[in-house]
Each structure stands twice: as structure tokens, then as C-alpha cells.
């Protein structure tokens, strides 16, 4: 099946009902997307489909046909959010971080604190207590942009 992964057209052979999460990690070798709960509660596996955050554990592979999928690898380690999370302690153990960043990337420049809290409501972090994450998103907000 064909789709666009981090800006590149790819053809991947996987079961149409496989979880997008497993296809990304196992068939595409992109292990930046993490599995947390496997039931859409924690947001650790958040990726973007056509710039919209989704839980990759709840998306059948068949449903990304012809779509643009963006994983944390698509930000190439150079996104302002990635730098801000590293510098301000927004990442500790790191499991929630890829999902947090991808949920934050769509909030646009200079999101309000309320917009950040609502936008990240589907992402759970057990280390930071969230304040450092909100600060990281605020710091990076001015430069946030995403490649498809």
C-alpha cells in the first residue's frame, strides 16, 4: 500500500488491519513512535495523519492509504519544540515525548496556555507534572511548523 511517510512516498506491505503503530515500528523501522497503553488513553503513540493528531494504536493501516503520515522522525531532531523540550526539562523518561511534541506541533504559533492544556489533554506524562512541558511548548511556539 502507498502513502506518504515524513514527506516521502513509500510502499509498505502490511496487513490492512495492522495497527499503524506496528507498521511504523516494525515494517518501517521508525521506533520513535512509542506504545503506551494500547487503548487510546495515553497519547504516547500520537502521529499526524494529514496534519491531524491521532493515536497510532487505534488506526488500521488501511485507513492511511494516500495520506501523509508524520512521525517524530519527520521533525528530524531540529524542530524548535524538540530543542525546547530538551532545554527546559519537558522530557524526562522520554516515553511520552514524541507524542507530546506531535500533539503540540499542530497548535500553531503562540498558543495560549488554555490551548496548550486542551491540545495536550490526550497525552499523559508521569514524570514532569506537565509544567515543564507547557513551558517548552510556549518557548517553541513562535517557530512551530510541521513538514508533511
Amino acid at each position, binding site marked *: 500500500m502507498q502513502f506518504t511517510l515524513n514527506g516521502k512516498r513509500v510502499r509498505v506491505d502490511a*496487513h*490492512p*488491519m*495492522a*495497527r499503524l503503530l*506496528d507498521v511504523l515500528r516494525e515494517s518501517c523501522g521508525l521506533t520513535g513512535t512509542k506504545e503506551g497503553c*494500547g*487503548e*487510546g*488513553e495515553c*497519547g504516547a503513540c*500520537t502521529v499526524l495523519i494529514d496534519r*491531524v*493528531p*491521532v*493515536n497510532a*494504536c*487505534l*488506526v*488500521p493501516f*488501511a*485507513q492511511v*492509504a494516500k495520506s501523509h503520515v508524520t512521525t517524530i522522525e519527520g521533525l528530524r531532531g531540529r524542530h524548535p519544540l524538540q530543542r525546547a523540550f530538551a532545554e527546559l526539562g519537558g522530557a524526562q523518561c522520554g516515553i511520552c515525548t514524541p507524542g507530546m511534541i506531535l*500533539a503540540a506541533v499542530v497548535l500553531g504559533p503562540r498558543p495560549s496556555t488554555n490551548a496548550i492544556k*486542551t*491540545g495536550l*489533554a*490526550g*497525552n*499523559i506524562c508521569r514524570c514532569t507534572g506537565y509544567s515543564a512541558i507547557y513551558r517548552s511548548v510556549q518557548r517553541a511556539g513562535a517557530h512551530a511548523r510541521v513538514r508533511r
Partner: protein
Amino acid sequence: MLGSVADRQLFEPRTLRDALRMLDQEGPLVPMAGCTDLYVSLNFGTLTGTRFLNLWGLDELRSIAVADGLLSIGALCTYTDIMRSRAVRVRLPMLAAAAREVGGPQVQNRGTLGGNVANASPAGDTLPVLAAADAVIVAASSAGTRRIPFVEFYTGYRQTLLAANELIVAVEIPRIRGRQWFRKVGTRAAQAISKVVMAAIDDSGGDPPRIAVGSVGPTVLRVPSTEAALAAGAGIEEAQRTLLEEIAPIDDVRSTAEYRRRVAVNLLATFWKSRR
């Protein structure tokens, strides 16, 4: 993941007509749309079906329209679509409020109104809204389309009137005059399934109030005796006693029957006292 997909078969219709034909010729098939409930069961190995029908690509089921006073919401509209729709925010603000409290953004971006209805959980967040609003379910099969009043749609716990060869294609909501009210009580604002969820509409121009409650019985419940008591001028304590006779909450993993009874009567009072 506990469940395997290797032995599962997926049918991929391009149009609604295709989908209905597949249901007839290849059925029974399990319809799937946003998968925010279905894939939870798949992950936990509790999903029993082996043959599935992928509805996600059927864009014809994604429109929101108003015609002759009737608001029509396509079955594949996501909670995000609903929150963003001006027609919904103006005509059915309690549905936009319910959509905002479903899961988090990732679930709101995939979960669909049709899926919430078809999944038939007594805790479905949009269901009290549809019950209070006297919504109508539009069901299609290759033989044609029929309309089912939402309050008759559920026949028991997770049981609906939908036939195996039918799909929910839209939900229709008649014009509402009274003020709309919605409240969900759960462990936290996001990512929580409700302990009790209530939607209500004020009495208006001679119409009685309309009240529906979720998570307090095997299906979402309209509470006609409570509505009638309030319409007849009963005090709130009397209406609360009537409500307790109409609901049947249970102890489960999310809450206790006692807590749910308490919250339900409190919500009723909050709604009734907030009338203008």
C-alpha cells in the same frame, strides 16, 4: 497487542452503495469507522469478529446540513467536525459540548457520531444529547432507507434495532426551542469515561423539559416521569425522588451505584435551578 490481525479480513467499499452491497453479499461484517472503540477491543484480544467493513473512506457520510429546520449530521462526522460546525454550535450546542468532552484531541479527531451510536455503550457521551433532542437515526440498507426514533433505537444493553445489513448513515435533529444543557461527570475532564452524563432541554412555550441520562442503566435513558413531574410544577426534591425510580445504576469499575444515584439527582437540581 493481544489480538492478532492475521486471520482478519477487511472489505473496502468505495461508496455507500458498495458498502451496503457487501453487507448483503458478504455479511455478517463488522462495520468500522474511527476505530476508537473497536481497536481497543482488538488490542485486548476481546474482539470476536473476523470480517470487517472499512467505512472511513465514505466521504458522502461526512456532511452536516440544515434543511427545513432539520439538522442532519453524517454518521462519519468526527467529534472534531461536530465541534467546528457552526450549524451544530448554533442549533445543538449541547452536542458540541459533549463532543469536546470525549477522550482527548486524538480520539476526537477519529471517533464518529455514527460510531458512538452504533457502539451502543450506556456511557456514550453524545447519546443523552440525542435522546433529549428527540433525534432520529437514519439507517440504510440496499433495500432503502428507514428512520428510527433515537429513543427507541436501543432494545437492551448494547442491543439496537439496526439489522445486520443496515448502516447508520446520518442522525437528524429537529429544531429545539428551549435552552440546552449538558454535563458529564467523570474522573477528570479529558480521557475519562463518564460516571454519569446528563443532557437536558428547558421547558419552552408549553413544551415540557426533556431530560436524558447516561451511565445509569443498560442503555441511555430518557426519564419521562421526571420530565412530567417538573412540568407539573413538582418541587425539585419530588422530581429527584422520581428520577431515582427511573434510573438503575450499577457498581462497576468506574463508580458505584450509590455515587451515581447521588450525582444524577444533583445534576437534575443543577440543571433545573439554572433555568432562566
